[in-house]
C-alpha cells in the first residue's frame, strides 16, 4: 500500500429512537500525497459522516463504527488519537467545514482560535502561536491580518471566515486536508477564490485533499479522483475524466443530467432524478438505486451488485456492467442525454 490515506470497508451506524440507521455501508477509498479525491453525492448519502467517522468526530453513542479500517501511511489509526506521537486530528489531518459562521467559536477571536492548534500540537507559547496565526492569515490572503486576528467571527464575511478556517486547518501542515463542502455556503465568486486558494496551498505543501461536495462543477475544477456515493455506498469510483466522459453508473449519469448548463437546447435541459433515496433504517437488499433507475432489472432488486472494473482505477457497482448483460449501455446512456427521456 503506497497510498497516503486509505479507508477500507467502513461501516458506520447510528442508534436512534426509530431504530439503527446504517449511514455508511462499507466504503473503501484511498488518496495519495498531492492528490485530490472528491466524494460526491446528494444530502444524506453518508459522505460527511464517513469522513467524520474517520476523524473520530461522530458522537458515540449514538454513532458506532461497526467494521472497517483507516490507515495513514500504512498504519491503522481508527480509534486512536495519536500516531507516532503526532495527533491525528489537527496535526496529521486538517478539516474544514461547510458553514464557517457556525463552525467557529463566536466568543473567541480568530487569531486565538488558529493559535490554539499550534499551542496544543506544536507546544508554541501564546505569543509565538499568535504571531504564527497572523502569518497564516496572510498566507490565506486575508488583508490586514494582524488587525483581523484580533477580531471575532461575527466581524468577518463568509468568505473571509472560510479562509480563516483553512488557515486553522493547515496551521500544523497536515498531510491530508478534509474539506467538507467548503464552498456550499458561499456565493459563486467567493467559491472560485476559495477553491483556487486550496489548490495553491496544495501545490505548495503537497498535501492530499479529500473534498466532500455535491457540486459536480467543483469536482471538475478540483479533483483528480472521484468517488460517487449513494445511500452509504460508493457506487462509482474513477479518475475525474473517466467519471465525466465514461460514466458507468446510472446514478452518476443522473447527477450529470441534473447539472445546470448554459446551453438552452433540449439536450441540455436540467433533468431531476425522480424519487428519493431509500430508507437507511432498512436498506434494500439489492441495489439501493434500483427504485429510481430507469434500466433496473430483476437482479437489481434482490442482489447488491459487486464492483465491476471498467478501466484503470475505474469501477462501478451496477449490474448493467455484468458481462452477460447484452444491452448496449453506451447507446442507452446516449439516448437519455440526447432526447432527455429514458428509453
Amino acid at each position, binding site marked *: 500500500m503506497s497510498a497516503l490515506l486509505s479507508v477500507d470497508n467502513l461501516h458506520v451506524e447510528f442508534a436512534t429512537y426509530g431504530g439503527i440507521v446504517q449511514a455508511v455501508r462499507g466504503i473503501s477509498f484511498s488518496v495519495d500525497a498531492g492528490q485530490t479525491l472528491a466524494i460526491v453525492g446528494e444530502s444524506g448519502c453518508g459522505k460527511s459522516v464517513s469522513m*467524520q467517522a474517520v*476523524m*473520530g*468526530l461522530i458522537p458515540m453513542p449514538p454513532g458506532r463504527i461497526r467494521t472497517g479500517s483507516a490507515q495513514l501511511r500504512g498504519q491503522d489509526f481508527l480509534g486512536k*488519537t495519536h500516531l507516532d506521537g503526532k*495527533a*491525528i*486530528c*489537527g*496535526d496529521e489531518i*486538517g*478539516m474544514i*467545514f461547510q*458553514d464557517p459562521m*457556525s*463552525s*467557529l*467559536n*463566536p*466568543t*473567541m*477571536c480568530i487569531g486565538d482560535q488558529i493559535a*490554539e*492548534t499550534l499551542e*496544543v*500540537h506544536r507546544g508554541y507559547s501564546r505569543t509565538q502561536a499568535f504571531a504564527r496565526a497572523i502569518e497564516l492569515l496572510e498566507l490565506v490572503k486575508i488583508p490586514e491580518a494582524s488587525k483581523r486576528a484580533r477580531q*471575532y467571527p*461575527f*466581524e468577518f464575511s463568509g468568505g473571509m471566515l472560510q479562509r480563516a*478556517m483553512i488557515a*486553522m*486547518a493547515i496551521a500544523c501542515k497536515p498531510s491530508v486536508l478534509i474539506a467538507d463542502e467548503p464552498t456550499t455556503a458561499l456565493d459563486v465568486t467567493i467559491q472560485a477564490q476559495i477553491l483556487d486558494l486550496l489548490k495553491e496551498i496544495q501545490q505548495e505543501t503537497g498535501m492530499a485533499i479529500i473534498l466532500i461536495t455535491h457540486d459536480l462543477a467543483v469536482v471538475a475544477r478540483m479533483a483528480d479522483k472521484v468517488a460517487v456515493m449513494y445511500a452509504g455506498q460508493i457506487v462509482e469510483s474513477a479518475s475525474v475524466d473517466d467519471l465525466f466522459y465514461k460514466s458507468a453508473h446510472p446514478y452518476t449519469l443522473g447527477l450529470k443530467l441534473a447539472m445546470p448548463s448554459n446551453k438552452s437546447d433540449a439536450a441540455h435541459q436540467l433533468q431531476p432524478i425522480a424519487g428519493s433515496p431509500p430508507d437507511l433504517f432498512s436498506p434494500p437488499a439489492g441495489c439501493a438505486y434500483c427504485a429510481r433507475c430507469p434500466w433496473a432489472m430483476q437482479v437489481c432488486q434482490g442482489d447488491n451488485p459487486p464492483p465491476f472494473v471498467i478501466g484503470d482505477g475505474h469501477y462501478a457497482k451496477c449490474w448493467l456492467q455484468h458481462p452477460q448483460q447484452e444491452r448496449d449501455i453506451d447507446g442507452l446512456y446516449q439516448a437519455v442525454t440526447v432526447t432527455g427521456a429514458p428509453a
Partner: protein
Amino acid sequence: MWWYTLKRLFQGVITVWFIATATFIGMHNVPGDPLSGDRATNATIRANLEARYGLDRPVTEQYFIYMRNMLRGDFGISYTQQNREVNDIIREHFPVSATLGILAVLFAAMGGILFGALTALFRNRLPDYIIMFLVILGISVPSFVFAALSQLSLVNMNNVLGFSILPVAGWGTVSHMLLPALVLGLGTMAYMTRLMRSSMLEVMSSDYIRTARAKGLSPTRIFSRHQLRNAVLPVITVLGPAIAAITTGGFVVELVFAIPGLGRYFVQAVQQLDYTVIMGTTVFYGAFLVFMVILVDLVYGWIDPRVRLQ
C-alpha cells in the same frame, strides 16, 4: 458601548423616578390620614413629620418636597420609632441583607453552573436524573418552606448529635450565614441549573465544538476554553432578575432565621404600617434592583464580544 451604558443608566434613572412616583401616589391614596389614629404615637413624632413633609400643604407641593428629599438621599423619619431616621435603618441593616444576598447569589450561580454543566455532560445518565429531580424539587418548593424545614431538621440534628453543627438562627459569624444563604440561593440555583443544562447541551452539539475536536484539542481543553464560557453567557443574563428574586426572597429567610437585615425590617414595617419606612425601603430597594439589573447587563455586554462590539 459608552452610548449604550449612558442610555441604560438614563433609563434606570427614569425607572427609579417612576418607582418613587408610584410609591408616592400609592401612599397618598392609603385610606385615611397617615398620621391619624395610633400611627403617630405622640405629639413629638407628629410635629416632626408635619414639619418635614408639610402634610398640610397641597399634594403637588408635597410631591416636590418628597422628590427633593429623595434626591438628597433623605428618606425621612420612622413613624413608629421616635426620632429614628429611615436612613439610619437602611445604613444599619442593609449591609446584613447585602452580605446574605451576595453569599446566596454566589452560591446559586456557582452551584447552578457546576450542576448544569454536570447534568449536560452526564446527559440521560444517573447523575443527570438525580440532579434534575432535585432541581424540579428546588423550583417547586417556596423558599420559606425550605427555610423552615431546614431549620427544623437542623434543630433535630443538633438534638440528636448533642452539639450544634450550625447555629439555628441569628447573625454574626460565618456559620450563621451558611444555612440562610444556602436556603435563599436554592431556588435560584435550581433555575440556573436548568438554564445551564440546556445552554450547555446546545453548545455541546454546536458546529464550533466539532471544529474544536477536529483541531485535536483534548476534552478538558474543549470544556474549559470553549464549552463552559459559551454556555455560561446566557446564564449571566438572568443574573439580574435572579438578584431581584434573591433580594426579595431574603425578606422571609431573614424573618425565619431571625437575621437583623433590611428585609425583615421591611416586612415588620409593612406589618406595623410604618409608612415612611415602607416608602424609603421600597424606593431604596427598587433603585438597588434596577441598577443591579443594569450592572449585570453591562457586565454581560463587556464579557460577550458580540454585544460589546455592536
